């Protein structure tokens, strides 16, 4: 595609609303984020965290009270949405109900004064790209949810936008289609190398599509990094619990060394590599223990004893609710073959995978 690839810089943008009951509310608070040229970055967070507001400010639908937004070298903070050169995909698709599929896709090209012959060829090309060749004359009311989503996508990319923006694009689809569409979106974005900002509340979806994820909470970005960074080295309890499932166990630092330290937890001591610089020996901390990092063996096979409270056999994996003393634990084991399921009430020995552990400072609330 002809357009140069540029990055997006969100430089400390804020948006305040006055709320009838709560008074002044920060919808977004000094949000800072860089999206490199061609990068796929996701804003992830629960509803009301400010991710959609941030996206809409990047689009130009809303205007920040403070801060700047740059597309490449250009400051677009005061530029209206129709001159930013963006492609936007809405959650509800927002297809023009009075126009056919081809007319929907052609709309942005018509606005740009592209000659009719070129419009026809580009519309045909992009509809082929999203797998909708032959749908030109259908109307949105005749399409399924997935097809509508593809039209919305085609309409956004056909104008060769500088930045592609997605607002929860898959929320209205059923689970299976959601997985299929997110793969298609990812492949399309890679192929076209369009700088992309994507909003979702679904952490699995975020991990599947993104180069990098920015987790937002209460209007601010609390952590950004790759899916693995967020999962294995969360900076606080919010990120630890929002991204994936987790056991947060109270513990105490017993020693620190080069590249790690030891933590007393569950009546034993474990080595942890990811220890924040702020903690000292003797500090109360919380151990971030992912369910799949707990190894389960028959009783006597390890240092930590626990009992099985209940379990669920889910085919490819088995989920356990365990109790270790008075600490409840959630564990997941992959099904390695028949006959390895621990029955309810069984006493088992636990082992913790040291590579997968992390520590959060403080004892929490």
């Amino acid at each position, binding site marked *: 595609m002809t357009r140069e690839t540029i990055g997006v810089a969100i430089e400390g943008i804020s948006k305040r609303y006055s709320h009838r009951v709560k008074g002044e509310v920060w919808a977004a608070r000094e949000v800072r984020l860089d999206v490199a040229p061609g990068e796929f970055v996701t804003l992830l967070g629960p509803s009301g965290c400010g991710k959609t507001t941030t996206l*809409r400010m990047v*689009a*130009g*639908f*809303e205007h920040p009270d403070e801060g700047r937004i740059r597309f490449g070298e250009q400051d677009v903070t005061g530029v*209206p*949405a*129709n*001159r*930013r*050169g*963006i*492609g*936007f995909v*809405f959650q*509800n698709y*927002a*297809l*023009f*109900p*009075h126009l056919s599929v081809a007319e929907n896709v052609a*709309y*942005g090209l018509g*606005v*740009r004064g592209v000659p009719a012959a070129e419009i026809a060829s580009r519309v045909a090309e992009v509809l082929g790209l999203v797998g909708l060749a032959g749908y030109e004359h259908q109307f949105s009311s005749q399409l399924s949810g997935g097809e509508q989503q593809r039209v919305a996508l085609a*309409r956004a990319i056909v*104008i060769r936008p500088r930045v592609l923006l997605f607002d929860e694009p898959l929320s209205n689809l059923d689970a299976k289609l959601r997985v299929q569409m997110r793969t298609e979106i990812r492949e399309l974005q890679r192929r076209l190398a369009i700088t992309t900002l994507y909003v979702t509340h679904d952490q699995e979806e975020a991990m599947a599509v993104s180069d990098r994820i920015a987790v937002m909470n209460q209007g601010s970005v609390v952590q950004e990094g790759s899916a693995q960074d967020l999962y294995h080295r969360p900076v606080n309890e919010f990120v630890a619990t929002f991204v994936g499932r987790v056991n947060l166990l109270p513990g105490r630092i017993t020693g620190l060394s080069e590249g790690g330290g030891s933590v007393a937890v569950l009546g034993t001591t474990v080595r942890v590599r990811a220890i924040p610089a702020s903690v000292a020996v003797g500090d109360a901390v919380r151990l971030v223990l992912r369910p799949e990092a707990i190894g389960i063996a028959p009783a006597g096979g390890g240092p930590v004893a626990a009992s099985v409270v209940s379990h669920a056999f889910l085919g490819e994996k088995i989920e356990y609710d365990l109790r270790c003393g008075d600490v409840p634990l959630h564990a997941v084991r992959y099904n390695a073959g028949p006959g390895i399921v621990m029955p309810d009430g069984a006493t088992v020995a636990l082992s913790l995978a040291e590579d997968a552990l992390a520590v959060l400072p403080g004892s929490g609330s």
Partner: protein
Amino acid sequence: MTGHAVLRRDPAVAVAVVVLWLLLALFVVYPFATLLARVLVDRGSFSVEGLATVLTDRHQVRAFWNSLLLGVLVGVGGTIVGFLFAFTAARCRLPRWLLTVIDAAVLLPLVSPPFTTAIAMIFSFGPRGLITYELLGLKGATVYGLASTLASEVMTYFPIAYLTLRPLLAAIDSNVEGMALSLGASRWRVFRTVTLPLCVPGLANAFLLLFAASLADFATPLILAGNQFPVLPTQAYLQITGLFDLRGGAALSLVLLVPALAVFLLQRYWVSRRYYVTVTGKGAGQAPFDSVSPAIRAALLAACAFVALAILYFYVLLLYASLVVALGANHAFTLQHYRVIFTEGLKVIGDTLIIAGIAMPLGGLYGILLGYLVTKKSFPGRRTMEVVSMVNYALPGTIVGIAYLIAFNDPPIELAGTALLIIACYVFRYGPTGIRATIALLQQIDKSLEEASQGLGAGTGTTFRRITLPLILPAFFAGLGVVFIRSMTAISATIFLVSLSWSLITVKILENMTELSLGPAAAFSVLVVVIVFVVIAIIGRLLRVFRAPGAAQVTSMLGG
């Protein structure tokens, strides 16, 4: 389960259905059939002679074309003004108080007696009018004719277009417009290529409603059209009251039926299927961006303010005219006109209030009963009942009035001149608003609500009382409101039904106008506006008190 089985199991429903059918037969089918018979049957055999006489009279043919011309112009003009207001209200991010002002300005013409703008037009632009004579110094200005009738009808009926278009504009998904903007379209292009096309069915609907309203309007042309611009409803009236030619009047009113029916069919089978946007009464939220530029916003507001001020000026003028000796001649303050209407006019005020007071609860009850039965019960002839119940509502008032006059003037059913006939006319002509509201509300109530109640052990009676009734109560009040307001303000049908013993304020206003006692006419009009506003306020309060939280809102208490 067949309809018959339901009736056997539920005798109360059976009784209600039979009674309703008898009433519909008597007050809808019978009068209309008599009207047709009077026009099309001559000495016991079918004859089109009566119609032919009318259709070949050059004067009447002109009245027909005039009616159509006026209807088209009012349709176009009223739709434009209505859209202007609706768009401003829906897209300009107005503060609350300004929206209230717009709603009030729009409400005023809807609830006024039919002559109000016409009277104000004469006061302003007549030979001794405030604007033409006093302000501009024109001598012998003529206010009568197409222009003044058109202006007056647009002013009176544009709120119908507003009420049709505003929910439509509010229901357009703001993301769709945002999408067009993000694809690079300018605001004007978004409006031209997205907003306006999505409104086309609504605009067509508004046009048809206004066309029908103008076609049926009797009062405005009677006052303003004059001899140079005869239209059908006034010709039919003059044929009957002036020439005592009942058959000719009936034939004329039937000619009116053709365009009225065409509008009805177009609306039902063409417009209603072309809506892209589902109006649920729930707005799609704020516009995603400033959809109008500050300059356009100011221009729109100025245009709305101009119309609103014109409306306000008309009403202030009316009030002023009721408080001075003779507007245009002697501007000394006096309460004389009010003294007149509360002495000589007292009987007619009492008559009107009694008739409206009786018609109101009957009409409200009729509305929810029929609406409930045709939506929730199955019985033979259910669809037919729904259609028949709409007939008097859809027909121009002139047709209904003449039909009632012909049907109930002579035995076997002699009701002419009685209050009962006027009340029946109002109930069956304006009760359908309540029917429509009830059906609309019931269709929004999910069947699972009633099933959930039954699943919790409640019987049919309890379920109706505790679940269904509270949810359709707004429709009852809407029905009450419309029947009362129209009983106070309507004239086109009932002018044929008044007598020495029972008369109506609107008819009295007309008499005053023709006798050129404009002061009392203005005083009567002010009185009607005040009464109607008080009643609307009370009903509005009741609606707020009784509306179950979360129950769907009745889109418009005054629509139609």
